[in-house]
């Protein structure tokens, strides 16, 4: 059996080596260099174990001879166990090397040396560290021989189930692409080679060049430039920052500093934004400011686009928009029904899509900004203990938060949850988070029905959704989705000012997805609405005699129970295609804002919004739920729970409000 001792300089590695091997050691040089090589043996349970003390190093890059010796030994000699000797009194700094070791070997024992010194600085939760890393962790004071027996025991009998260091998604995708290519030329560990090739590691590049793997090198160069473009920094800094995020996150999870505050800006900000009492109020304030930014800054652009497409009425005189002008022009050379279909169906749908674009783009701009700045990672950290109450790990808050943008990428983002039960729970809860489209409809209705308290009404709906998600999470995690949450390290990247290019790329990637979805589903839905509102031939557009009017009459008795008008029910029906369509349908059915305002009391409007907050998600979200689970029963469950919760909540709001005489 071969054991390698690895660690930063001055961590007491030689003391540990001496304590393990006693007098059975010899000192020489590593081949070809004058770096000292110490080797010895120890006997445990009658087994003779070879122990090699590798040169002290801070990382495993190829910048110094010590680093090259250490990593080549691990790759070439493949030690059975690596003992990572850590100066526990400088825990965070020492954990950086661990992130690199985890990429090379799964069999690592952590020796937390100088534990007595460390206890003066922090309270270290060793058991939590074991759980989070999936590795044996031994607190020790080597100079006094404390912990040596435990270390020997773990070397022989330790259980190794290590967690992988995850890089940001943009990097992980590229590591995967390059790993596949490297596997084809037979280099192992492929992931480590992929990471080092991306990092421009001179030793690895030389090796690949020597093997004639030009296509790998070309691909790596291309991928490296992509990453540098997105993050606006050189590759070495980007990768180092990601590893530091893991080390920083792990440190925050396991060590509580006895004296508060830190020495870097990141430490200082973290001290406050992850504060026990102030962290959540700060989170609420930041999210509220973000939503205000999105909706209020988008408003003039939306109004301008709306005016461009639909024109407007001024003192009873209509100013023509593009749809009116185009319809008048097309009517001169094509049948009226076709001109109406193109303009009142397709072009109106297209107008609706483009009207939403400013909101969607600003929403993703702000979410990308929060993510790239490092704040969203803190939110996951902050919410960890709360999320555990609803059966999810801290990372589960990210898909829920993404749900505020769009439920489709949010449900896809549940892939980051390793546990299948947690993943299904997260998917089941996600539709109750109002997506950007639903928020848009709420904002629209709030401004019509509650002009003085629109933001408050919108905020109350968001809070209501959070309360329902929380209560359902507790219920589900104790009944339908019972399971144990898996420990993991929450990466905490250092704060940075996001680059315009990085934020723009992320914003565009997500907005493009919306445009594609909208371009098909919303325009399609607008055409269907046009057909239902125009047929049978000869009836007035959207009148009671049209199919859409007949549908309203059929569904009316159901709506009475929750205060919904027939027109509101129809708009909810079309909201199944895409939530944004609800506004379009209300416009078609009522004609203008004034008529919408006259059609419902404020209480009915609020009940309508509550119903819409919870009822079945749009068809694209349901398709994603099926894609991610491949389970039709689960899909039906998601639809069913939506209607049940929506009906119950709207019923309660409407009847309690009526009893109290509020908004009637």
């Amino acid at each position: 059996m071969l054991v390698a001792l690895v660690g930063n300089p001055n961590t007491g590695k030689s003391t540990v080596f001496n304590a393990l091997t006693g007098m059975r050691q010899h000192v020489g040089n590593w081949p070809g260099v004058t770096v000292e090589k110490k080797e010895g043996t120890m006997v445990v349970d009658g087994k003779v174990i070879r122990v090699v003390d590798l040169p002290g190093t801070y990382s495993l890059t190829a910048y110094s001879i010590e680093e090259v010796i250490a990593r080549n030994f691990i790759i070439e000699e493949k030690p059975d166990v690596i003992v990572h000797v850590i100066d526990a009194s400088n825990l965070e700094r020492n954990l950086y090397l661990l992130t690199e070791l985890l990429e090379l070997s799964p069999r690592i024992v952590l020796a937390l040396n100088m534990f007595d010194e460390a206890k003066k600085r922090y309270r270290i939760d060793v058991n939590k560290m074991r759980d989070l890393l999936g590795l044996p962790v031994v607190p020790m004071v080597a100079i006094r021989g404390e912990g040596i027996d435990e270390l020997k025991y773990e070397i022989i009998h330790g259980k190794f189930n290590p967690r992988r260091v995850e890089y940001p998604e943009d990097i992980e995708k590229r590591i995967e692409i390059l790993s596949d290519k490297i596997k084809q030329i037979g280099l192992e560990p492929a992931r480590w080679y992929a990471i080092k090739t991306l990092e421009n590691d001179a030793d690895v590049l030389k090796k690949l060049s020597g093997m004639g793997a030009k296509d790998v090198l070309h691909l790596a160069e291309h991928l490296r430039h992509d990453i540098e473009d997105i993050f606006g920094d050189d590759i070495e800094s980007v990768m180092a920052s990601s590893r530091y995020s893991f080390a920083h996150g792990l440190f925050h999870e396991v060590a509580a500093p006895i004296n508060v505050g830190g020495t870097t800006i990141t430490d200082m900000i973290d001290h406050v934004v992850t504060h026990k009492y102030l962290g959540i109020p700060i989170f609420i304030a930041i999210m509220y400011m973000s939503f205000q930014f999105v909706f209020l800054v988008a408003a003039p652009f939306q109004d301008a686009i709306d005016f461009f497409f639909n024109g407007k009425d001024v003192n009873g005189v209509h100013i023509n928009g593009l749809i009116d002008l185009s319809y008048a022009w097309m009517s001169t050379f094509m049948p009226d029904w076709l001109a109406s279909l193109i303009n009142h169906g397709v072009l109106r749908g297209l107008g609706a899509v483009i009207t939403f674009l400013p909101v969607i783009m600003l929403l993703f701009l702000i979410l990308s900004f929060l993510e790239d700045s490092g704040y969203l990672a803190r939110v996951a950290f902050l919410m960890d203990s709360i999320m555990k109450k609803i059966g999810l790990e801290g990372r589960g808050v990210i898909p829920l938060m993404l749900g505020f943008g769009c439920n489709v990428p949010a449900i896809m983002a549940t892939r980051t949850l390793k546990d299948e039960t947690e993943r299904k729970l997260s998917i089941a809860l996600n539709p109750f988070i109002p997506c950007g489209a639903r928020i848009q409809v709420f904002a629209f209705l709030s401004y019509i029905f509650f002009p003085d308290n629109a933001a408050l009404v919108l905020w109350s709906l968001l809070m209501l959704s959070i309360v329902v998600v929380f209560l359902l999470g507790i219920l589900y995690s104790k009944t339908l989705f019972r399971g144990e949450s898996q420990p993991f390290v929450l990466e905490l990247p250092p704060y940075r000012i996001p680059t315009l290019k990085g934020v723009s790329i992320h914003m565009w990637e997500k907005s493009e997805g919306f445009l594609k979805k909208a371009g098909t589903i919303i325009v399609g839905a607008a055409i269907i609405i046009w057909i239902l509102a125009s047929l049978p031939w000869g009836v007035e557009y959207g009148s009671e005699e049209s199919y859409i009017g007949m549908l309203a009459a059929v569904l009316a008795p159901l709506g009475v129970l929750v205060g919904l008008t027939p027109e509101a029910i129809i708009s909810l029906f079309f909201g199944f295609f895409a939530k944004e369509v609800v506004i379009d349908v209300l416009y078609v059915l009522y004609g203008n804002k004034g008529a919408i305002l006259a059609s419902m009391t404020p209480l009915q409007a609020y009940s309508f919004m509550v119903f819409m907050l919870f009822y079945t998600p749009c068809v694209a979200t349901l398709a994603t739920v099926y894609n991610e689970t491949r389970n039709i029963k689960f899909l039906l469950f998601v639809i069913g729970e939506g209607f049940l919760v929506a009906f119950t909540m709207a019923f309660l709001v409407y009847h309690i409000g009526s009893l109290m005489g509020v908004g009637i």
Partner: protein
Amino acid sequence: MKNESKIIIAILYSQGLASVSAYFSAAIVSNMITGHTPFFLISFSILSLLPFLYVKKINPRYLLIFSFLTFLLSLGIMVVSHEYIDLSGDVMDAFILLLISILLFASLRDSINLLYSGLSFYLVGIGLLISYSALKIIILLADVFDYYINCIGESCAPYTTGVIPAIVLILLTFPALIPYWHRDLFRREAYDS
């Protein structure tokens, strides 16, 4: 003037900023309930005298001078604000302004002793204040833009608004940035303390 003195004056000044922020917060809530800002809210300026409770390391004469100047400044702003400020009707604005003032008040005891633990609250408080104020100014510009977009084809009166709290706060924030520029003078609390 030594950098350390500049930092301490800026921190004393920030307590005035915190009391102004707390005042705007209370004024928004009061404005929503009673329809006007009661004059008693001017008593919030007394909060700017908080350093007298905690600060022991400064010469009492200087503490008195700088705290009294801060008190007068915040009192002046509040009196003028009572007449001219255009308060929003949004309870969340009140919540954010209250949170900012709490962060700044909470920073006092440690930041005056040049400890990171105080600076951390100070920086987040000031950061949140700048973000809030910048956001509100952007929203005001968007609102002006929206007003004129909606006026196309109509004859509208020119857009009018009072001074919003964000403009006052962002102007007052600049002197409070001094501790950030001299953050290297701050230190950790001694381990054995």
